[in-house]
């Protein structure tokens, strides 16, 4: 068997895979995103609506 043909990320990752990493703690159903704004302000934003749309668009 030949060595794994790994996708060299030449193809665009899926949005879910991307958010898995960009949001820092994985995409969790109805989790929160922590946004660091200004100096130390932390705004918590509900991700549930986003997840809803991912679900309904797939």
């Amino acid at each position: 068997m030949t060595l794994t043909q790994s996708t060299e990320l030449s193809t665009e990752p899926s949005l879910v895979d991307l958010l898995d990493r960009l949001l820092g703690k994985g995409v969790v159903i109805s989790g929160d995103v922590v946004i660091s704004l200004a100096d130390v302000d932390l705004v918590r934003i509900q991700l549930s609506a986003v997840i809803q749309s991912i679900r309904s668009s797939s």
Partner: protein
Amino acid sequence: MTDTGTYVYAVGRNIPADRLAGVEGMSDTPVRTIAHRDLIAVVSTVDLAEFGEAALRENLEDIHWLETTARRHHAVVRRVNESTTAIAPFRLVTIYRSDDAARDRMEELYDELAVVLDRVDGRGEWSVKVYQRAPDGPGPKATTSAGGAGAGVAYLERRRAELREREAAVAHQELLSDELFWDLVPGAAATRRLVTQDQRLSGRSEPMTLNAAFLVDQGRTTEFLRLVDDARSKYTSLAIEVDGPWPPYSFAVLDQT
């Protein structure tokens, strides 16, 4: 004059400015760098009418805005990653009031950033996702017994047994996935387990049993992929998806909340 902020994509060391020429960030604004001690932040200016606190609340709930923003963030991080060996990607939409505020933050986080950059230097992130393979063909057919007095009871018992078996099978696959994870650990400098993606998000019919990230030395990539191949032969009931190298997103976490 519009109110603007400084969007930070990543902080790294030894990022040659000319490698970022022509790279555009959010809203097609060119990226630039902010230097502080031996660190370089890759940033761009954003309009707070779109990236301010109130606007973000709304925009983050807009899937198209979120996707455009995430892809642009990733595109910039990828370019930075190609230009140097040590970068710490920042979380999506990390925005400071000004360049000075970003620089203050770099000073404040200096020690942590140094640790992170040492950790990821010369290494790439590999994603390994494992799915429970769908059994070949439909499962054993439930024999349809001829009707009669005991048929209803027999049916219920058969159903219960089937459910028990299915639950046991899932638990078994999870155990195997855990073993698989540990088989790959020797190939990596660090590992992280992410939350498995819900089937509704992954869009797969098979459940995901492992979602892991491995930080692998560039010089040991072949060795790591060989371990993955060994696992493919060993765990035939599991489907393994590997991709990378990603910028080290999962290993540049500065959690202070």
